[in-house]
């Protein structure tokens, strides 16, 4: 575990970088000129690519040597997709999937 000082430094970096992503458009483009087209293009195209990347990042621990290494993740991801397509309710999808995953790792694939 990190020391309290190291953890505080990591949190300060998270806070600083998060603020940077929010303030950058105002620093760069608040004088009326419109942003370069290439910035707008990447601004449109990157979010889905980055979210896909983060999903893979979250699932990087999957291993196929035993069902417990992959089944809970894949079943729960499937449930989140299914719930979300069905009910379009963010909270229901997130919590339904999470509770299912918790049941799977705690009671089913032990």
């Amino acid at each position, binding site marked *: *575990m*990190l020391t309290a000082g*190291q*953890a505080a430094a*990591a*949190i300060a*970096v*998270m*806070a600083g*970088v*998060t603020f*940077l*992503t*929010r*303030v*950058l*458009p*105002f620093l760069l*483009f*608040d004088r009326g000129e419109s*942003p370069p087209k*290439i910035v707008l*293009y*990447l*601004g*449109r*195209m*990157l*979010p*889905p*690519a*980055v*979210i*896909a*990347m*983060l*999903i*893979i*990042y*979250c*699932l*990087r621990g999957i291993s196929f040597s035993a069902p417990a290494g992959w089944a809970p993740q894949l079943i*729960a*991801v499937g449930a*989140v*997709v299914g719930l*979300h*397509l069905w009910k379009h309710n*963010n*909270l229901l*999808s*997130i*919590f339904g*999937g*999470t509770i299912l*995953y*918790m049941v*799977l*790792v*705690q009671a089913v694939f032990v």
Partner: protein
Amino acid sequence: MDRKALAAAFPVTVPVLMGYLSIGIAFGLMLERIGYNFIWAFFMSLTIYAGSGQYLGVSLLETAATLGTVALMTFLINFRHLVYGLSMLEKFRGMGIRKLYMIFSLTDETYALLASAQAPVGVNPKDFYFAIALLDHAYWILGSVIGAVAGALLPIDITGIDFAMTALFVVIAVDQWKAYKKHFPAVLGGAVTVLFLIVLGYFFGQQQMLLISLGVIVLVLLIFRDKLEETPAAEGEEGAPC
């Protein structure tokens, strides 16, 4: 800001109240589980104030990531904020010192409310916007503190609660999939990351591979720019929570 602005803003923010309390509680539980109590939850939610960013922050703290990795990952996950800011340039003009706070507190939900909500007659729109931002931030802090305290007091097994982060990203991805006409960026992002993070990361370490994945994604997007931009991109906003 006066009470009139707060009273006008409150009903508008009720959906965010419910969402932030639940997602904030899950964050507090996750943080408590890796050994950080409600004081940490309070300060993270006060100073960072980003749902998916703080979920990721939990795993960065847990894995003792280097500050460089922390900065990179935080930047990546919050990249979409750049787009929000672009559409708030006009709205925040003339807000004086409060503009800094408006920029700081521009989460997905606050962005969504500000983009759509209209100040009632007789209420100064600037006060109204500021009240919305302030209330949302308060809900988020409250939720995460409740979660951390509950995690410490309740004798429940919360193994697996960290899946909430994966679920949040999957929900964002499903919304994006429906909002975007072209699915190439999403497929590209997934495929490149599988290749570099999982396959090559196995040999070279996963932290460097994430940066390389992003570089390759940007490069491919730039190469195919003409093709991807041939139809005017009327893609909707991403319907992302937090």
